Each structure stands twice: as C-alpha cells, then as structure tokens.
C-alpha cells in the first residue's frame, strides 16, 4: 500500500501568517477572539477572530497579482504560495489541487459587494486558485459543511493510494460574512462571549476566519520536520437529523472506529485527540458520548475553537496542522475557554499546556447534514526532545 504523508503547511490567521507563529501564540495561550462591533455584519456586537486586512494586503501584493481577487482568494493564495515554495514541488499532471470551503465567496451575493455575483460559484474559486499557480489539473472543490477540511485530507490520501496523484495540495478557507453570522444567529447558536468548549457554562459558538494549506505526498523524502503519516480515515453519516447531532454520537463513533481499524491501532494507542468542540450544548455532549463509546475518555483532548472560533470549512485542516506541531513539539496545548466539565460523560480536557511525548493523534469533526469525519495521524520520523 502506498503511504500518504502530511508535510509542509501554512496557516493565515488572526494569530499569525505561518504555522510556527500561530502555534507559538497557542503555546502562550493567546486567543485571536475579540469583541467586534460591526452592525453591517450583525446588529449586535459579536466575538470573532479576524485576519488583519492590511497585513493580508501587504503579504498578497508581494505575489504580484495581475487582477482583482476577493478577500478569501487573497487568503487562500497567500497561504498556498507558502506551502508551494517550501515544498519545492514542480507542478505537473501528477500534482492535484483540492480546495475546501463551506461558503467560498458567498459575500459576492451581497448587492454592496464590488464583485459580480457569479464570483459566488465555488467552481470559480477553484479556477482562480488553479490559474494563479498554473496547476495542470482542475481544482477538486470539496464542500461538505464543517467536515470539509479533514474530509479533504482523507480524499487526498485516497487519490494518492489510487495512484491518481503523487502529491496533492489542499487549501481550505472561509471568511466571516454577514451571510454566515446572520444564519448562525437565527439558530441562536452564537455565543455573546468567547466560546467555552465542553464547559458547564458554554453558550454557543464564535465564527472565525482562516486559510490553511498543506502538502499531502506519497514521498517520504524531503518531508517537513513536523510531517505525519495518515494511518486511517473514515467518514460516517448520523442518519438522524440535518441540523442537530445524533444523541448517541453514532456517526462520529463509527467514523473513529473505522479510522482506527484502518490504522490498525487500538484506542489505547492514541496519545491525543484534537476534537471539534464548537461549544454548543448538543455538539459537545454528542462528542463526549462518542469518545466514551470508543473508550477514549482518558485520552487528553482539546478544542482549538477558543483560539480561532469556528472557522467552518477550514477548521479541520487548521486543527490538523496545529496537531502536527503539537506532536513535533511534544506538547499538549490547553483547551482555551474550558474551566468546569459540562458534558454528562467523562472526557479528559487539557487544562494546562504540558510537555509529553506524543506519537499519534486523532482528529475529528462533525457538521450539518449529519456528517462526521475522523483521521488518525502518526509522527513520521524526526522528533524534538524537550520532554
């Protein structure tokens, strides 16, 4: 069987424009969440983690764009460029491109947006990214709600193991828009304060924005120092409800089980869980149930939503990248916003950033439509010893 590795990576976010500086901020327990007052986006103030527009413009202009790009395209192109540069891979017909997003350039539908509404087609977004870098293959756009980011990792692995591609670049991103905020607000799902995943006093989600990119490759040569091997992946539907998670965590439970089976690992061999943890009542409870059904309740776990908010179609890839750095640094990062356990089944939420030798981790996500995805990753080779 061909192996598939996650290698060079980048994060463009409120906490920095490369993975190392973002992870350093997480290490220092710095959150990107701030109170935003923008009544064009939402009548009342809201918490969000936004990318600095001036810094983005400056970074993007260095790439000498020849035409106009949307904010999301600027984020995605700036992010993917970093990964292409560091990987030194030449683009040919054996290199694939996956673009992962839930809503893409949805702000183009707004009458006050300078771009034509045709820009809201996700295939246009894919084409713009593909053409900027001159990828030979058409972009594969994955839009599968909040699992899009990690589903893309699973899809890239399958393409590599099918021998369709040798390397796949994934870029994922979503922006904070009135479209998204008004929708989650209509569900009464937005928190009036910084979100508190798994906490007794959690009151809902914050929406944030990032672009994250990664190289998925079959080659074990010239890997990034924090590279991991993808050992297993699975996606299972709850077959229960389109907007509420399953009461039994069925789809998530099955996803984890099948991913572990494929990885040929037991639950006891997982060192860390990078969970979804949106901080809604039902989601966090559902996850706790699924982790318990899998006997994973003692494994240290965090949600990174307290640092970035929920970054939708990018969240899964963003959190996978942070998890890779967590393994490389042999450090468990505190689950920001958590204080007192607020789910009915025991789980081991990380309350203090701690050094510990880490080899494997499980990344999970769940989303509207009843979708769930789990992937299992293992440190590929080099380790940094500061345990």
């Amino acid at each position, binding site marked *: 069987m061909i192996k598939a590795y996650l290698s060079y990576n980048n994060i463009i976010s409120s906490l920095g424009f490369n993975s190392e500086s973002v992870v350093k901020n997480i290490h220092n327990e710095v959150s990107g969440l701030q109170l935003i007052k923008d009544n064009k986006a939402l009548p009342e103030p809201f918490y969000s983690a936004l990318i600095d527009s001036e810094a983005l413009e400056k970074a993007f202009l260095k790439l000498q764009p020849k035409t106009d790009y949307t904010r999301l395209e600027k984020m995605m192109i700036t992010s993917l460029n970093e990964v292409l540069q560091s990987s030194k891979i030449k683009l040919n017909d054996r290199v694939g491109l996956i673009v992962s997003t839930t809503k893409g350039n949805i702000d183009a539908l707004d009458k006050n947006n300078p771009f034509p509404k045709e820009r809201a*087609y996700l295939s246009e977004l*894919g084409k713009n990214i593909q053409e900027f870098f001159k990828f030979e293959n058409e972009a594969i756009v*994955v839009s599968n709600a909040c699992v899009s980011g990690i589903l893309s990792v699973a899809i890239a692995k399958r393409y590599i193991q099918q021998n369709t591609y040798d390397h796949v670049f994934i870029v994922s991103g979503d922006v904070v828009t009135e479209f998204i905020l008004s929708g989650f607000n209509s569900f009464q799902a937005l928190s009036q304060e910084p979100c508190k995943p798994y906490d007794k006093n959690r009151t809902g989600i914050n929406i944030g924005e990032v672009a994250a990119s990664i190289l998925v490759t079959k080659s074990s040569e010239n890997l990034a120092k924090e590279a991991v091997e993808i050992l297993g992946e699975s996606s299972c539907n709850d*077959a229960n409800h389109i907007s509420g998670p399953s009461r039994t965590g069925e789809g998530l439970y099955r996803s984890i089980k099948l991913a572990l089976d494929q990885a040929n690992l037991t639950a006891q061999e997982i060192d860390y869980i990078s969970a979804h943890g949106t901080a809604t009542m039902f989601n966090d409870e559902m996850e706790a149930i699924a982790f318990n059904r899998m006997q994973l309740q003692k494994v240290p776990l965090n949600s990174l939503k307290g640092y970035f908010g929920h970054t939708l179609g990018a969240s899964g890839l963003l959190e996978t990248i942070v998890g890779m750095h967590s393994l490389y640094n042999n450090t468990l990062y505190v689950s920001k916003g958590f204080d007192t356990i607020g789910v009915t089944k025991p789980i081991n939420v990380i309350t203090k950033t701690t050094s510990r030798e880490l080899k494997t981790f499980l990344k999970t996500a769940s989303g509207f439509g009843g979708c769930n995805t789990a992937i299992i990753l293992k440190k590929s080779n080099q380790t940094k010893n500061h345990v």
Partner: protein
Amino acid sequence: MSSNYNITSFCHIKNHQVSLNGTVVFSEQHVGFSEFIKAAYKHQKTNYPKFFKMDHLSKLAFLAADILLKNLKLDSEKENNIALVFSNKAASLDTDISHQKAIQHKDNYFPSPAVFVYTLPNICLGEISIKYKLYTENSFFIFERFNAEHLFSYTNSLLETNKAKSVLCGWVELEGDNYEAFLYLVSKEGHLQHNTQQITTLYNT
C-alpha cells in the same frame, strides 16, 4: 480505465421528465420546477412528508435517489452500506440567494434557520441518509461541469478499500427553474461495466 464493478441502475430528472434506466417513467410539461417535482413525487407514491420542507436541491436529489434505492427493495432491518458521492456546479446557490434576500435590507430582515440549514450542498446527502438509514460515507464535490473521471476514480477507491459495498453517485444541479439530476448506482450487480466511457454515455442519454 475500467473496474470490476457495474452500473446497476441509473436515473435522470431533467427536461420535465423522470426516467429510470433510460425509460421515461414520468413527464409533466409546461410547469416550473416547484410544481414539476411535487407532481413527480406524487406519481412515484414516495409518501415521505419530510419531502415538503426540503429546499429545491434536496427535493431533486432526494427524489432521484429514492427512485433508485426503493427499486433495490432494501431490507430496512439490515444496514445498507451504500456510500453517497454527489457533485454539481452551483452548490446550494439557489437557497443561498433566498437567505441573502432575507438579510439584504435591514428594514426587511428575516433570516430563518429553516432556510439557512439548506445553504450547504451536502444537506441533501443527509436527507437521503436519514430516509434509508445510511450510516455511510458522504461527500459533495463541486465542478465546472459533469466530471466522469473524478466520479469514477473516487467511487472505485471507496469500493476497493471496502469503505462501501455500493456507491450512489452522480450530478444534482439546480438553479431557479434549471435543474438536472443524473444519479447511478455502482455495485457488483448489473451488466453495464463501470467505466468513464459508460458513465459519460449514460449521462448524455
């Protein structure tokens, strides 16, 4: 490229017609999508009240899937490992526009969760999974146009790695009164070999 699997059955919904395995089973001319799909639902005796709260994309995808799946006479007591791999160009744009209308003017502001939840293309996969108890792989892809190569290769990977016993896949596109569904089931059963040429030929019938 070919595989050891077959196209077991296929369904089209386009140009005011529903057809199963190339034979027209329902037709209703001179009506918009909304009336057409309701008439098709009644004709097919679908009898699933949740259908009426779905958005247009979900109605289209659900009905095409239902026509193929009910034909399989699945045992509802047993689990059916049928994966769903759908694609289109417009994603959920039809419902996105409805939500945008509800928020465009502050003096007429009425965002609704019942609309917003359908601003994701994969919701239609959830609807089908709920009806048929499919605890299976779901993926939604966006392409400029129908992409037989991608569907073929991705479906094969799910079958060959035992992630699914069969795969329901295809194209479900909807924008206003323009609609087109082409779904097909890939499994060991049937006589039409699963390959990109075959998929393209059936798509164009």
